[in-house]
């Protein structure tokens, strides 16, 4: 936006004003400014043209602004039209009434009566003087006759005498042949006779006299009379008489008045015309200047509004840094200041809001992180039973993809995951209960607590918070601890009497058997053998118990899973009753674990599988698969072609003394479970799709493992 210059306007207006003033002076006071009139008119017209150009430029700009729909253009147009009308109406009125005034005013100075009166006065003066001229004509005629009849007196003295007698100031004799013939001697400073028109003298046939005004401006009577004489020699007398007394002065005054009045009367029309022209020029220039000033003023008025409009657009577009110039002290200035304050506050408010948003976001992220890091699963439901949030622990526990299910109606989830139904039963909400849920990793005991959300805000209240904990391991541990204690006590309590029983039986056998023969000897031998065997068997059972109860220090080291599996499998190679098939998916399976425990786990599982297949005709078939987990760690699957786990057994197989085998202690899988858990791993049972049982052991990689490996 171009900066407006009020000084430019002032200068132009002053120039216009001065030009117009000089022009008006030149019209009325012709002497001083008269010679500059043409220049002044030219200058005024030049200024006018300049103004026209300026107005045209402004009009074009306005037109363009209107076409482009620039803010403020329509207001400018309205203001210019308003100012223009406001300027034109008074100027037009002034123009009209000034013309009327000039017309009537000037005409009123002149009237017919005055004109006639002055004409009459002039005629009267002329008559009065003409009566004198008649007298002088007569006197001159008489003098001419006297000259014709004069004697031998020389002409010069005769003329002098004649002049004195007539009372003339100058007397002369003229002829047609050579013009002037003789002149009287005159008083000093007497005007000359008038020259002959076109250098030719005319002979006055009859005496005549007329008024004559020579260079000195005084009024004289010039009388001419023919001098009678011979034919062919024509002479005449001319005499110059002063008009004396007040008559001359009055007549001259009347003539001056008449002349002046007539001149003014004649100049009336040019005067009116020149006044009208000057007025037209003045008003035209004023009008043009007013029009231009209208543009100027409109711009001055509109500019701040335009600034405001631009600034408002900027603010609407979100730019609060925009500032409106605060030049004036008026209402517009006040508006600009108010606008600037508003944008400042808006900017501040937005900054605060942004800061708040950031804080809120941080809090939210923090909460989400905490929520995600919670080892307990948390699921929230809204009042309409839609899943609002599922934290990472819950997702892992329930084997859900939170991204898929977030915001989905609970019904849809339960349609696909029917096993989860007991978790969300409405009837059992608002409480805490343990549920056995069958998941892909096996049977899990989940402890579910649910609480109704009762917040002050309506959109949150009515929902539910479900807290899910996988307590299977905890329960296992509890049971393990209990069973361990039982086993230890059992071992202790049984082992102690077993040795004396065995020793006593052997002693009995050694002492008594040689002395007994026949049936008695056989009975003793059978009975003692049975006692010894059962004691041995019981000792083996007690050893198993003590082994279960025993938990030596964990010795973790980096174990090569593949070579460990190969080593264990190698031990069974020579046996005919078992075939072990290795499936090694990854060649490098390193895991941080206790190698001895790992071996025992494998042996227990293999033993368990062989025992499970003992009833069948063919040799036991065992498949051991080992693979590295994508996130580090190792998975070990031991499968067989036995009868597999019955559904009832699946949930309880890891508990001690649960066995389907004759003579089994029920400690094999319980021990495996214990050993795996001691190393931070997980183990679960399942059945292979093609039949047979499968045990999966998963040992997670310790977090620092990759660095150690590297």
């Amino acid at each position, binding site marked *: 936006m171009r900066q407006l210059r009020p000084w430019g306007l002032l200068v132009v207006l002053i120039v216009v004003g001065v030009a117009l003033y000089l022009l008006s002076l*030149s*019209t*009325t*006071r*012709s002497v001083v400014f*008269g*010679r500059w*009139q*043409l220049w002044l*008119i030219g200058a005024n*017209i030049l200024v*006018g*043209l300049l103004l026209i150009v300026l107005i045209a430029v402004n009009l074009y700009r306005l037109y363009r602004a209107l076409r482009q729909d620039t803010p403020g253009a329509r207001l400018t147009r309205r203001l210019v039209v308003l100012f223009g009308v406001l300027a034109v109406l008074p100027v*037009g009125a002034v123009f*009209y009434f000034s*013309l*009327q005034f000039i*017309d009537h005013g000037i005409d009123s100075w002149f009237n017919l009566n005055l004109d006639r009166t002055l004409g009459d006065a*002039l005629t009267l*003066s*002329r008559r009065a*003087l003409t009566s004198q001229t008649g007298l002088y004509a007569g006197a001159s005629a008489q003098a001419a006759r006297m000259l014709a009849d004069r004697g031998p007196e020389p002409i010069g003295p005769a003329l002098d005498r004649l002049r004195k007698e007539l009372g003339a100031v100058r007397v002369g004799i003229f002829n047609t042949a050579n013009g002037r013939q003789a002149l009287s001697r005159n008083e000093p400073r007497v005007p000359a006779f*008038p*020259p002959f*028109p*076109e250098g030719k003298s005319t002979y006055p046939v009859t005496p005549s006299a*007329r*008024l*004559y*005004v*020579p*260079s000195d401006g005084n009024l004289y009577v010039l009388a001419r009379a023919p001098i009678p004489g011979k034919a062919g020699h024509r002479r005449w007398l001319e005499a110059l008489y002063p008009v004396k007394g007040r008559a001359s002065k009055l*007549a*001259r005054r*009347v*003539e001056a008045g*008449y*002349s*002046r009045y*007539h*001149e003014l*009367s*004649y*100049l009336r*029309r*040019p*005067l*009116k*015309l*020149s*006044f*009208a*022209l*000057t007025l*037209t*020029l003045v008003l*035209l220039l004023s009008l043009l200047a007013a029009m231009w000033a209208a543009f100027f003023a409109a711009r001055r008025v509109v500019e701040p509004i335009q600034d405001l409009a631009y600034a408002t657009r900027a603010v609407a577009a979100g730019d609060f840094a925009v500032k409106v110039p605060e030049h004036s002290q008026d209402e517009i200035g006040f508006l600009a200041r108010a606008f600037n304050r508003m944008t400042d506050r808006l900017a501040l408010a937005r900054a605060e809001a942004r800061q708040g948003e950031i804080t809120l976001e941080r809090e939210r992220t923090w909460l989400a992180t905490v929520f995600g890091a919670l080892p307990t699963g948390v699921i929230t439901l809204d009042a309409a039973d839609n899943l609002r949030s599922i934290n990472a622990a819950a997702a892992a526990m329930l084997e859900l993809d939170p991204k898929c299910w977030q915001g989905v109606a609970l019904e849809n989830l339960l349609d696909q995951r029917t096993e989860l139904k007991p978790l969300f039963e409405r009837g059992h909400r608002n409480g805490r209960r343990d549920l056995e849920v069958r998941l892909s990793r096996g049977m899990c005991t989940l402890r579910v607590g649910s609480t109704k959300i009762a917040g002050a805000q309506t959109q949150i209240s009515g929902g539910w918070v479900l807290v899910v904990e996988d307590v299977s391991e905890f329960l296992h541990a509890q049971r393990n601890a209990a069973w361990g204690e039982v086993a230890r006590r059992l071992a202790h309590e049984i082992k102690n009497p077993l040795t004396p029983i065995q020793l006593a039986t052997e002693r009995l056998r050694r002492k008594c058997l040689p002395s007994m023969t026949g049936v008695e000897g056989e009975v003793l031998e059978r009975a003692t053998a049975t006692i010894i065997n059962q004691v041995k068997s019981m000792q083996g059972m007690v050893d198993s118990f003590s082994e279960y109860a025993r938990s030596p220090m964990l010795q973790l080291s980096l174990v090569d899973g593949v070579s460990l599996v190969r080593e264990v499998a190698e031990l069974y190679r020579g046996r005919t009753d078992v075939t072990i098939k290795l499936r090694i998916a990854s060649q490098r399976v390193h895991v941080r674990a206790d190698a001895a425990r790992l071996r025992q786990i494998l042996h227990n599982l293999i033993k368990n599988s062989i025992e499970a297949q003992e009833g069948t005709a063919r040799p036991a078939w065992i498949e051991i698969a080992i693979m590295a987990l994508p996130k580090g760690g190792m998975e070990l699957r031991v499968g067989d072609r036995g009868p597999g786990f019955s559904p009832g057994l699946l949930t309880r197989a890891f508990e001690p003394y649960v066995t389907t085998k004759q003579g089994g202690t029920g400690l094999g899988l319980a021990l495996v479970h214990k050993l795996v858990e001691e190393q931070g791993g997980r183990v679960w049972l399942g059945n292979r799709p093609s039949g047979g049982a499968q045990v999966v052991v998963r040992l997670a990689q310790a977090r620092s493992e990759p660095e150690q490996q590297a």
Partner: protein
Amino acid sequence: MKRLRGKVLGRLGVRGAFAAVILGTGLFYVPHALARRPAFAVMRVHSYLRRGVYYLDADLSLRLNPRAHRALVHGVALTFIVEIHIIRYRRFLWNEIIGRLRERYRLSYRPLTRTYRVENLNIGSSNAYDSLAGALDSLNHIRRLPLIDASLLARHTRYLARIRVGLDDQALPGPLKLVSLLLPGWQLESTWNQWVLVQ
């Protein structure tokens, strides 16, 4: 506005309004071609050297158009200017004006005596004539007008002189002055007539 213009036209007269309109539009230039034939002209010039002074005899032709004549008989004095330039001829530079003469004559009408009066404003002499023709005739014949002292002229140099006669519009009364600028018939001026003063 139309009605207003109509009224204004009625008061001012068509010519005045026309002039106003012309002035209003800034096209106020009135070509001299509107004057039908040259009202003022220089018919004959004759310069001669006598007793070390160059003199001029000139015959002019001054004709007053009806407009000027009307102004004259209504008491407006008309001033005529006979302008004479003495010019030094220069071959390689522009010519130099070495002397300017402005003879001013005033012609006026005296209603009391019904005479036309011619005043030589330079020397203050005046004469009265019964007819306008006589008065103009006295103006038409310029005799023994001293131009320049021969001693002021350089030797072996060509000098030119030129003459023109015109009406002095600056001497007109104020209102007429503006009108005379705009209306045809008031631009009374002859062209320059140049002759060789000294070969």
